[in-house]
């Protein structure tokens, strides 16, 4: 994974965590410090499905493993569409 890809993933994690739990993380420190990164991953695992998925991908790149396949973001754990996402699955209108 290139540096720009790592940055993009970290930035997405930042946005998702802030949106779901109001927590603000330090993106640059996340990229530099593994201990901090592990703590952020632990927090993200406890948040919503999107954070969980991003955390899994970030953790995989930390360990040098292939990234897990993304799951559809609009699905909840039960497989139902979320209220805001369902409208945009097949198009905008």
């Amino acid at each position: 994974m290139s540096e720009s890809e790592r940055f993009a993933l970290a930035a997405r994690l930042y946005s998702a965590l802030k949106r779901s739990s109001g927590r603000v993380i330090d993106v640059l420190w996340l990229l530099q410090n593994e201990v901090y990164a592990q703590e952020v991953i632990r927090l993200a695992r406890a948040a919503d499905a999107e954070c969980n998925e991003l955390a899994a991908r970030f953790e995989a790149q930390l360990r040098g493993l292939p990234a897990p396949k993304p799951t559809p973001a609009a699905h909840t754990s039960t497989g139902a569409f979320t209220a805001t996402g369902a409208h945009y699955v097949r198009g905008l209108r």
Partner: protein
Amino acid sequence: MTESLRAVLKCLLFSAALLPATVLAQAPAGPMLVPGANISAGDTAWMLMATVLVLLMTIPGLALFYAGMVRKKNVLSTALQSFAICGLVTLIWVVVGYSLAFTPGSQFLGGFDRLLLDGLAYIKATGELTVSHLAPTIPESVYVMFQLSFAIITPALITGAFAERMKFKSMLLFMVFWTLFVYVPVAHWVWEPTGWLAKLGVLDFAGGTVVHINAGAAGLVCAFMLGARSGYGREAFIPYNLTFTLIGASLLWVGWFGFNAGSAAAADGRAGMAMLVTQIGAAAASMTWLAVEWLRRGKGSLLGACSGAVAGLVAITPASGFVDVPGALAIGAAAGALCYWGATGLKWAMGADDTLDVFGIHAVGGLTGAVLTGVFADAAIGGVSGNALTQALGALVVLLYSALVSFVILLALKFTVGLRVSRDDEEIGLDLSQHGEAVE
């Protein structure tokens, strides 16, 4: 520009011409040098204003309209596409586009009289200047700019169909070839009096066929050729900021007065009628779309109101210099309902990931307006009556031509530079992967 450079360009263009040599034959009528007294100050002032309004439709209007509807990681790339096309098409237009579209030539293509705008003149000492035979009361320079603003927005509309997945360099190359081989000839066929569709009696006051059906057909082919975005139909693609879309749609609505009323090429009663029916068509379509949405989903949305307005503006475009108030109401209402279907039921039935519904709104709206112009055209306003069959024929020819040539261009690009970004680049977003920038 030197004569030698012009000669070289002419040689290159002649040798690359795909049409028979007969198309290069010159017809007598064309741009001409006239005394300054022939120019109407009122017409010129209005056309200067109309040109600015139409240019505002693309930058920032369409750029914002589209950018608000894509995901956050693709906002900048989507807006940049419209902006870049503005520069790119300007260069094509002054080098060869205007000449091939708006000088007489043959019934299929114009001539090279205005290559590099050669011959376009304003002579301060004598007060003489050139005018186009299509707009004899305004300077040709203003007419070139007015038509340029149309040539810019047409390819920019297509970008909505392949948003979030096309390589930037492929997009630029596609737009060069599409402008030259699709927009320019179609504009000549319909708007130049020697064009073969104009001779058939096809009515297109401001570009329902030349701009919207043309762009919509190309958009659909782009959507099929590029394939669906990763996750399409399974994931929710949340729009970044629909406030941008509202601002863009508002700029489009206001700018459309330049588009339609400006197409009268004069500050006169017909321009006034075009402005009036433009407002009515947009309003009727916006309210119809909202009503249909409300009935089907139990809610009316901001995006629905904006989409309906654009649908109405598209549909009234070919009719704007020909129809009266009842005609505008009918065209607007029909466009609101049909384009809603185009962007939902028809889109799902076709299965193409036309990202921002370019076909569903521009082609469906354009077809609606083109055919209904034949039904509602009032000879008292435009001097001619319409024929729905002729209108349908013109629309169908342009739709098929645009689709076919777009397919050929895309196929050539696919096997040379490639069309689509890699899966990883798509996942990261085009802002970062194509341009190294991001919205924070």
